[in-house]
């Protein structure tokens, strides 16, 4: 990437690129990684590829709910934005199949729901 100038910084702020429509974020700070976020991240990337699910798997920092790490935040068009906690390999696959593919929320692992405006 070339050097940023004053103007390009202004442009970046203006043309806030529309966020990807479908994404999954995995909390990858020390607390998350200690709880196994690394593994969950890998499973999500691999399985999404295997199942041909069009979703961007991203990393992010700690969202604060350290007692229920690993945290996985899921945003799919037409669904509320949901944070899943205590995600293991099994739940990760469920998220891909149920939430993202069938548009049904996964029971017992939701820790936060945000309503889109």
């Amino acid at each position: 990437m070339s050097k940023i100038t004053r103007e390009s910084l202004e442009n970046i702020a203006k043309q806030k690129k529309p966020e990807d429509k479908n994404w999954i974020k995995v909390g990858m700070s020390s607390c998350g990684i200690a709880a196994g976020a690394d593994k969950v991240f890998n499973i999500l990337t691999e399985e999404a590829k295997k199942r041909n699910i069009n979703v961007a798997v991203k990393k992010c920092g700690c969202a604060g709910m350290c007692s229920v790490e690993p945290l996985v935040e899921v945003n799919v068009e037409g669904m509320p934005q949901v944070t899943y906690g205590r995600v293991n390999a099994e739940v990760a696959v469920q998220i891909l199949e149920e939430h993202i593919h069938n548009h049904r929320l996964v029971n017992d692992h939701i820790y936060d729901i945000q309503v889109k405006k």
Partner: protein
Amino acid sequence: MDKKIIYIRDTGGVSGTAMPDKTKDVHSLLLNGLRDRGMQDSVQAVRVADIGAYNQGVVVKVLPDTAYYGVKDEDLGRILDAVKQGTVVKELTARKEPKQLRIVLRNCGVIDPESIEEYMASEGYQALKKVLFELKTQEKVIEEMKKSGLRGRGGAGYPTWMKWNFAKQMSVDQKYVICNGDEGDPGAYMDRSVLEGDPHSVVEGLMIAGFSVGATIGYFYIRAEYPLAVERIQKAIDQCYENGLLGKNILGSNFSFDLEIRLGAGAFVCGEETALIASIEGRRGTPHPRPPYPSVKGLWDKPTVINNVETLANVPYIVNRGGDAFAKVGTQTSKGTKVFALTGKVKNSGLVEVPMGTTIREIVFDIGGGVYNNKNIKAIQTGGPSGGVIPKDFLDTPVDYENLQKLGSIMGSGGMIVMDEDDCMVDIARFYQRFCFDESCGKCSPCRIGTAQMLGFLSKIAEGRGEIGDLDNLRRISQSMQRAALCGLGQTAPNPVVSTLRYYEDEYKVHILQKKCPSKKCRNLLSYKIITEKCKKCGLCFMNCEAKAITGNKDDGYTIDMNKCVRCGRCFEVCKFKAVGKE
């Protein structure tokens, strides 16, 4: 088709009484109700694990925004009818949920910490641009900081603008700014999370600090125990150099700034600013007397500003939104928000960020979900080894610098440890005293000898050899340490002892006079015995006793010989009939 979603959660009974988990029943009732109304395909009923409402009974929420609290089985039909008709059952809704306010953690958990593009897409480096091209002068930036009322988040709460102003007024050839990321309090990890979750905001804050005081070189002092934080800050710095945000003539202005990381080897005292400076200079990390303060004579004898990670993460926000907007949040004397690492015996441990002035009760019960295992809260501890305990009677105190100080604790860097009735205050004081004893650098005698002596007295009391005069000795040593110790570590090291003595002197006295520990924590003061009425003579305690202190057989029952007992508590744990008594 837009699908509606109902979700339910059992938040436990009102005032923390344990209730059997009803979620499963409610869930199946809801499913049946949906089927009866032919809505099973258009509405999904989902069980959630936690949605931040506590002690409200069963909560049913209908997306997007209707929430029903304390729902009984018979209410479900009405709710479902309302969902079908698109209306709301008004009488079940009233209540507002407590809210956190995220300023420091605005990007944590939202953006990819390793991507400068994502940071820039969420207002990143706009504050730097504003400083360089709109505010232009150092005075204006400091003026904004003054308006904001931001105070240092490292513990003492010194106004940030004053620190900057002192350093600015010095006219010398070289000045420095340092980010203090040497977070060492047991149970506190706010700084680590900010460094790991949003490194660019701290980098930007440090750059603005550098501009304001006229420094051209900045250092990150991060402890080596935080490898991921170091990695991410290094990545952020590299990305800034690649993009021309660090180096010579940043963004085409005449401001030049360089940043480097220095690793701390994990000595607690190196969080003290003069010791930190010594450590960066490559010397042994010991403090020296102030004044001269670092903002006058700091790193390599040049004016140096040292700010905490959280303080710096606030800076870009203040510049972007203006100092006045920031000052609207918080109390009279303490502005903005504070991040707390909520740990200990609390249901939901984690990071919370609340406006100053939020009460401790709101933090622990409304956000943290109350005490683990539905036990009763005894106290909370803030400020780590430099702070004190706050008994449960003061839970409704609004949190700010002054209020915590009045209660004998300090804000500290933001650890908040919840303690329940099983925690012994003598044991807590002893724990922190041991920590300070281990971490004392040994340069000044009040701290070196004081911590050792205090630890000795506390151990004596906890082991049942205490005398009533020990309490006066503890008080006397505390006073002299607070007055005579060289640095903050030594001056504040007695705080846990002083505050526990202030609120829980009775507990100390029970240890000393009756040789008993009311919380059943201090091992040497415990005694075990078998309660014959409850004993089923199964022999499990006998088999598990490593010290061979339990004798007897399956016919006659068992007895514990307290002379042989090592008080490991194994028999107490294994007994299924609660027939082993502990006191």
